[in-house]
């Protein structure tokens, strides 16, 4: 890999994967890599999950949340995706010179409110200020630790043929909400971001023990990317049904207009699960009992076919769902 970093390297698709494998893993060594939302390590105190994430969203305020809420939920959800009970978070801020302190207060308060409501403390942090023009208002990094119950091990390499694929609610809400806000689009949208912590909803599935095989927070790249990664990581085929995908009508219509696909739009409050088929209905019922999972659906199943993601279309045909390439772009006509 050579040349310059382009926006495509940050899109979560093929280029991002190559950046990670050819620059970072090559330099860091990949033997300890767990390729999951959080890494789990055995410490004297128990099985400990660790994850870190940086948030650079623009605009920093959006319907349904702000960059602070996003930074809290994103890291909590990455811990939840390995079945961990989140214990504490760090929060670091890179602030651009000239930023309004009142805006910063609002962002800090959304993190504080979520922390108090969920009982997950912010225990350390950092602030740096950079010259005007060297950043875009504020970037936040959060790191989280949690404890994983002994009997749980959510990882895509546990996925086996026959597993059911479950999504915890409507897909693409966050990505659509942010796209519609973008300058120049002029879509009046009532869709709000789904940004929310999911650790309680995920912990409702702990009673199913090792019958839940994998979970992932379907953020950047959407469920289309998550399921492609799972196919690749598990070496199994995944078949989803278009007619089972929960999509808000406004998101479906707006995506048609903008040339976007809800399968690839980011979510900030949706989890994808692979569950043993005989426990799928039970898992679905448990998810639906929780407010964050009330629109959960079984959307597909794992096959022993080639490691790729296939969709049965609403027309009864089948097609590949490719891994997205580069950043998502509007179409020309």
């Amino acid at each position, binding site marked *: 890999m050579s040349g310059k970093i382009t926006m495509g390297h940050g899109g979560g698709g*093929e280029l991002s994967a190559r950046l990670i494998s050819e620059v970072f893993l090559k330099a860091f060594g990949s033997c300890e890599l767990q390729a999951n939302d959080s890494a789990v390590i055995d410490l004297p105190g128990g099985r400990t999950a660790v994850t870190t994430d940086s948030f650079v969203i623009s605009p920093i305020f959006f319907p349904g949340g702000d960059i602070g809420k996003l930074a809290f939920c994103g890291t909590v959800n990455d811990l939840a995706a390995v079945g961990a009970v989140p214990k504490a978070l760090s929060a670091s801020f890179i602030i651009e010179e000239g930023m309004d302190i009142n805006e910063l207060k609002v962002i800090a308060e959304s993190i504080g409110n979520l922390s108090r409501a969920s009982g997950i403390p912010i225990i350390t942090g950092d602030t740096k200020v950079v010259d005007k023009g060297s950043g875009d208002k504020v970037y936040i990094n959060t790191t989280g630790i949690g404890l994983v119950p002994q009997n749980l091990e959510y990882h895509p390499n546990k996925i086996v043929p026959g597993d059911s694929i479950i999504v915890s609610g409507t897909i693409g809400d966050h990505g659509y909400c942010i796209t519609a806000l973008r300058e120049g689009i002029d879509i009046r949208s009532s869709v709000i971001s789904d940004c929310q912590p999911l650790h309680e909803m995920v912990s409702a599935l702990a009673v199913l023990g090792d019958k839940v095989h994998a979970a992932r927070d379907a953020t950047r790249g959407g469920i289309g990317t998550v399921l492609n990664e799972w196919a690749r990581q598990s070496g199994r085929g995944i078949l989803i049904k278009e007619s089972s995908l929960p999509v808000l009508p406004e998101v479906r219509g707006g995506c048609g207009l903008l040339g976007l696909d809800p399968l690839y739009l980011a979510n900030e409050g949706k989890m994808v699960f692979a569950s043993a088929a005989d426990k799928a209905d039970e898992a679905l019922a448990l998810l639906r009992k929780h407010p964050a999972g009330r629109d959960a659906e079984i959307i597909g199943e794992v096959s022993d076919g080639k490691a790729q993601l296939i969709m049965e*279309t609403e027309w009864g045909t089948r097609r590949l769902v490719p891994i997205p390439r*580069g950043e998502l772009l*509007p179409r020309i*006509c």
Partner: protein
Amino acid sequence: MNRTNEQYYFQLLSEKLNRVSKIPVKLMEVCGTHTMAIGKAGIRQVLPPAIELVSGPGCPVCVTADGEIDAFLDLACLPGVIMTTYGDMIRVPGSKGSLRDIKAQGADIRVVYSPMEALELARRERNREIVFLGVGFETTAPASAHALLTARRENIENFSIFNLHKTVPRALEALLDDTSMLIDGFILPGHVSAIIGEKVYSVIADRYGVSGVIAGFTAPEIMAAVLKLVLLKQRGEPAVTNQYSHIVSYRGNTPAQNMLRETFKPCDAQWRGLGNIPGSGLKLNSDYLNYDAAVKFGISIKETKGRSGCRCGNILKGLAKPPACPLFGTTCLPESPVGPCMVSSEGACAAYYLYEGGELP
């Protein structure tokens, strides 16, 4: 029609098509949006074996000539220039990389959804030169015309268009003039037709004896067009019909046509893969030359020879399918495209690679 009815209708259409299909029929979908819709809906799987769908030159990104690509890349590198573009163009490779590559090297490139957004940028950034990359057919050209009319009315001097707009009807005739082409019917572009109307296509049936159906973009609409074209071919009764009449009128969108006439006039245009086609382009009217970025910045389009190995020409003419290209899926991939047909979300090669490249169970 609700979704369930549409699914039932689609099933009925494919059953009927399989029942009536008797002879080999080769159909071309002209428009890139149709190409993508066909791939996404998996339509080829339900077609009778005698029916072949090939993609035409109707993806504006794909038919942008190599010399044009290099010219707008040069323009985007000029100091003081902000190049604004529809998103599809940002990854199109020229001989010195793509807009995305030169953006990473410091050029100021902004993705916009419409030229009016570029004009708004020009109002805000008076000390910069805002250039809009005018690519597209009759669907996007009226938006460029609207921006030109507005810029002139408001006397906005730091806005210009690098105009590469092309028009569809003459390109279809050029395809049909090419005797090597053996197309039995066209699925005609719904969006383009909404602007230019139905009547301009009559020449296809009258002079060339080939049928055309103006169609929408849902799976049942495309299947209905295929069925109609197969029946017209089998009966030997070439005709142009409009199955998108709730959107497309006989004369088209007259206000949009008037805006185009006010700002542009027809000219010859260079199409990637197809060469020079008389009367298939638009150039700015003399009243608007100060909004022509090529004139303003002295940029000329040089002839370049095509990249070696890339078979875009035959693919855009429907003579070859993407997998027949030696670069397809090897050196030419969506993340590192050699030709624009692999870049665009509506390109034939991208549609093939993304949706039909796997082994479907």
